[in-house]
């Protein structure tokens, strides 16, 4: 089995300049070079900006986000988009860690969200902590929004490769070797075999996630090489709930896979992954869930972490899988955001599993006050708050990009008020005896 090596180049600062270059952890984005990558009949014009952690800046209506990656002159990243689907697996992929490229601006089917580069929203989004290259755009008059969306995705992926190309001759800060998961029957020394099921949204234009450039609509679940996900085989074209969105960046750095790798050989044996569609018909949801559980058993998983894309009906996909797994004797844990209302007193889940366990990725409805910022990218208005894009606003957590990430990329959770009070009491008692 070929091993993938991620040559990690850290990005500590970012600016726009005449030509793209990467030196000493500084990324310079060549404006003309970057904008030329978005040449497409569906786009009238684009404008490239940068926003770094700590900036008093707000990115309004963020669309997809991509981590800059390249395999050098041979090509091979983003198969199905930037490379043939049968490109060789493994090899070396250069990564600009700490950088991200994203599009921002009005797209009719995008649920508007935001990223702040400082303040409380910055702490809640994985993209408040990255050095961001942000592309604003104008659709060509004769183009449809759907055509503009495809053009933006292609442009973002090209830009991601272009930026990472600048680092191919630099010495990497670290090299990550991504081994394949342990096959069934491999001695585990008594450690449990733990895998992941990742559900992808499959509802057509603006509501689809791509695997090797194609939708999983109509597919059955499949055992999938997690290394391929970590090497860019999954690209997002999904614009629902901002806080619940899994942009391409989060798939490239699939948090559950990463955490399973981190514990591999110590507490568990990383057993692999299953990718699933989220069908729109109940019978298909049940078929997909039963089949996914069957695959996990066939692959000798002892336990499974289940992730989703979207809300509402996607909760049903999650619930059905957890229940199917537990009924088959596997231990299952699902990641859900809570919908308990602004004050947190409502029922947390609409459709939760009957068995298994749930990790809370935070409360969708909890409101947060954001301070005013100096500049905004992506739009002059924040429609969800009916305010100027730079104004101090109060918004629900639901609007902060990936803050409630169902792939586990966020740092939010919810605890019962009583539990928090008890913790505080214990803290005081411990403080008193110290």
């Amino acid at each position, binding site marked *: 089995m070929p091993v993938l090596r991620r040559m990690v180049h850290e990005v500590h600062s970012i600016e726009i300049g005449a030509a793209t270059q990467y030196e000493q952890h500084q990324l310079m984005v060549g404006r003309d070079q970057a904008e030329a990558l978005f040449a497409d009949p569906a786009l009238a014009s684009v404008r490239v900006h940068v926003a770094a952690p700590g900036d008093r800046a707000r990115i309004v209506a963020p669309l997809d986000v991509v981590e800059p990656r390249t395999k050098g002159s041979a090509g091979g990243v983003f198969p199905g988009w930037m490379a043939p689907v049968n490109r060789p697996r493994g090899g070396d992929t250069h990564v600009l860690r700490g950088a991200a490229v994203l599009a921002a601006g009005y797209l009719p089917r995008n649920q508007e969200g935001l990223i702040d580069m400082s303040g409380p929203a910055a702490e809640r989004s994985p993209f408040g902590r990255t050095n961001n290259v942000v592309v604003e755009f104008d659709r060509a008059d004769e183009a449809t929004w759907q055509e503009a969306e495809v053009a933006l995705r292609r442009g973002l992926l090209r830009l991601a490769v272009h930026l990472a190309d600048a680092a191919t001759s630099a010495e990497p800060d670290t090299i990550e070797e991504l081994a394949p998961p342990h096959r069934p029957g491999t001695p585990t020394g008594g450690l449990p075999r733990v895998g992941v099921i990742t559900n992808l949204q499959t*509802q057509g234009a603006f509501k689809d996630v791509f695997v090797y450039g194609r939708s999983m609509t109509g597919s059955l679940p499949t055992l999938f090489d997690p290394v391929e996900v970590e090497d860019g085989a999954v690209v997002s074209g999904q614009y629902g709930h901002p806080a619940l969105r899994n942009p391409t960046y989060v798939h490239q750095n699939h948090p559950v896979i990463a955490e399973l790798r981190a514990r591999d050989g110590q507490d568990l044996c990383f057993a692999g992954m299953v990718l699933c569609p989220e069908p*729109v*018909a*109940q019978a298909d949801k049940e078929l997909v869930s039963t089949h996914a559980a069957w695959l996990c058993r066939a692959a000798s998983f002892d336990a499974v972490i289940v992730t989703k894309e979207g809300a*509402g*009906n996607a*909760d*049903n996909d999650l*619930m*059905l899988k957890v*229940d199917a797994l537990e009924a088959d004797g596997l231990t299952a844990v699902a990641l859900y955001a809570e919908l308990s209302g602004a004050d947190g007193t409502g029922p947390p889940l*609409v*459709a939760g599993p*009957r068995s298994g366990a749930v990790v809370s990725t935070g409360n969708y409805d909890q409101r947060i006050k954001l301070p005013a910022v100096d500049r905004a990218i992506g739009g002059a208005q924040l429609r969800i708050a009916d305010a100027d894009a730079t104004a101090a606003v109060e918004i629900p957590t639901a609007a902060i990009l990936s803050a409630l990430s169902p792939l586990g990329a966020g740092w939010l959770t919810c605890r019962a008020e009583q539990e928090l009070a008890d913790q505080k009491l214990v803290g005081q008692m411990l403080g008193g005896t110290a």
Partner: protein
Amino acid sequence: MTIAEQVGAPRIVPGRGIPYPSGDPSLPPAGEQQWRRQLVQCALDAVTTAVEHPTIFEAGVVHA
């Protein structure tokens, strides 16, 4: 188990997909009209039937 059952909806008529609860774009126009009529007819059958807990009424099936 469906979300409708889980939230306790007493009378449930299943559609064929989330984006079109009272339609089916895969059918030709006349067939879809017929399907929608069956769904509404089935819903009317459901509201004339006594139930004690979440109960599924399949459209196109005759309910005694």
